[in-house]
């Protein structure tokens, strides 16, 4: 698993997040109250995982470890994405 619970209400995405990570991420985002996602160590993000993030709009602890995502996708995210580490 490259998605796991961090401290308190933080969910950590690490290394290569594949399609199989989308469901556990969705689960965690729905279970936690005010969850945040730390994606600094994620080097590669599958569309399915990104879709979950887009839908649930959690605050994100960045920058994303995947520079392409940071360059092309993050500017398009319209919610308050910044959260303190």
């Amino acid at each position, binding site marked *: 698993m490259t998605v796991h619970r961090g401290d308190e209400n933080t969910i950590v995405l690490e290394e290569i997040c594949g*399609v199989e990570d989308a469901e556990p991420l*969705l689960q965690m985002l729905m279970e936690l109250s005010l969850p945040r996602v730390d994606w600094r160590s994620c080097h590669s993000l599958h569309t399915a995982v990104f879709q979950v993030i887009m839908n649930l709009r959690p605050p994100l602890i960045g920058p994303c470890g995947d520079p392409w995502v940071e360059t092309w996708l993050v500017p398009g995210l319209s919610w308050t994405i910044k959260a303190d580490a």
Partner: protein
Amino acid sequence: MSALGEQFVSEARELVAQATDALLGIERDGVSAGLVDQVLRAFHTLKGSAGLLDLPAMVLAMHVAEDLATSIQGGGTSPTPPVITQMLACLDLVAGWIDAFESGGDLPPSAGNEAREMSEALRGVLAPSGPAAAPQGGVLPGWAVQTIQMHHATLRSRAGVGELFAIAYEPRASCFYDGDDPLQLLRRIPALLALRVEGANIPPAEIDPFACLLRFYVLAEGPRDALAGIFRLVPDQVQIVDLPADALHAVPEEVAPAGAHTIVRRLINEQREMLQVSGPDNALPGRIGAAGRSAANALRHARLDQLADEVNEAGAAAQVDADAGALVAALAVALSSIDAQTSSAPVATAGNPDATEDAANRWIRVPEARVDALINLSGELIVLKNSFAHLARRIESEGSQDLSRAMRREQEAIDRLAGEVHDAVLRLRMVPLAQAFRPMPRLVRDLSQQLGKKVQLVTRGETVESDKAVVDRLFEPLLHIVRNAVDHGIETPQVRKAAGKPEAGTIAIAASRAGDRIIIQIEDDGRGIDPEAVRRTAEQRRLMAPDALAVLSDEETIELIFAAGFSTAAEITDISGRGVGMDVVRKTVEQIGGRVFLTSRKGGGTTVRLDMPVSIATARIMVVESAGQRFGISMDSVSETVRLTPNRVSQVKQNEGFVLRDRVVPICSLAELMSLGGQTKTDAESRLLIVLEVGTKIAAVEVDAIRARTEAVLKPMQGLLAGARGYAGTTILGDGTVLLVLDLKEILG
């Protein structure tokens, strides 16, 4: 079919009907936020359910249709007749798919191609927003314009000079299962300039993490071959469009869609109402979270990002405090600042009339068979109840006064209750006539356009209710009558003008209830029926002998249009002039115990009146045969059927009889009763008897054979036979023959 599939079929049909209504409303009354919203929601929901059931072709078509509806909402595309026609065609396509899905559990194999063609056609009528509309040769699709608008700043400072392309990549919902990772493909675009991602707005609880509902819009530098190469495995999901070099500068800066605010208001209002409803305390944080998220998303949709952020923060705070106050306040602020921005747009606000309407229209879908089972049960309850009366009398005659009084009291209570149950159950089958009226506006619109006529349809009394069976069967006659009215009744605008009438003809359908009958009147102000023309046609078609025809009054002549094979249209059109229409109307209406009246004034229009029963009285019938003829016997009076060997039959005076459980039962032959001649063979090995009990009387009727037991609608005897005794009525059997149903109470009595 799975429960999900069944639900999809019924909901999708309802959505198609709603969207059709709304589109016709837009065409008739112009764009209104409510109607466009309805269309948009219908397409959106259809797309969602199609995604859920993995019907990619339908997702594709609905997606483009949704874009078009959004564009209408934003004022980018105006709903001209060709646009409406295209959207209606799209709904027709979906309706066809739904039928296929219902029968085969999937869309037809042709759906993929149909969806692509439909998407192209819909895109064809989608007006590109902005002056960049016409790069050489073609129009810039709306998505490309939007993408350019969102990335103006970046694009202006672009240094590159290569060829420019706009790419729309709309992956199939099932693409993850195919091993696709859309972002992976996009990463391979060498000179990416802008990327816009659109997601479907789905409540978290309904998200399927394995269905890809994202759509990607890209601006990139060529060469085209390189771009096409990247997407070579998903050609059906990608559209690559050339951008002229000046396109970037020609597209204006973005503006928020005009209609968006209305929806946002409504959404925010809904959230506020939800927060004000009391519920279990432990659910409150969840409700606050959901309300805050939805409201913020809505605000963002209208490009009100700052308000969205404020609502978001208030929501988070409220969630922590488990007190909705802060969020409610933030929502109020958001609402008033939207109002400030759109003060010119009159929008219904407080009181939300929709809410009460929703409550009144809440439905439970119940399979017809279950309702029928309930009706049968309540019928049996009534029969049982009747036996109490006998019982009470018996107790009385045997001398127990107190007991009999108590019995009677109880019996009255059961009587009342059984009656109420029966009524309530029958009401379950009552549906509003609106169901039969619903397709008419569409029909009138299409026909009148096809024929170059202007027709306005007015309907009244849609809320009048009738038994489902009546409403279902009403549809076809109504269709024929309205068709006839548009095709033969209403004149072309030129003719009408010359006759001093308004250019647009009017067809009015009005329903009303009169006791246990429903009167439906279809009136047009067209040319009316010319008795002379009818007479000539009847002569040509030899519908009647010329001398008989000559003595008919004008009214009687007009009635001839109900005759089979009659048509007054000079040429047979594919719309109604086949001469079967009115014939079918009369037959169908009479089958359910109704009647048709027709009045017409040459030049002044035609009125057709349908007089229908509120409910169809069905009777359980046994079909028997005697001396080669078939008759119906109401099952209510049949207590049993018996086969006797001749030695059990004894002769009592002139009559035959036999003993059944200590009672002597007289036998009479049905053939004799009906004076059919043909002797029943008394020397046969066994004799078939139907034992009838009516009140205290018992008798057996001998028949040759029992053919069937069936449910049938009884039509009272009419015309010369109206006064004939011994018949309960007639009914038409499945094979089309008319069956006389005997009233045995009268025969035995």
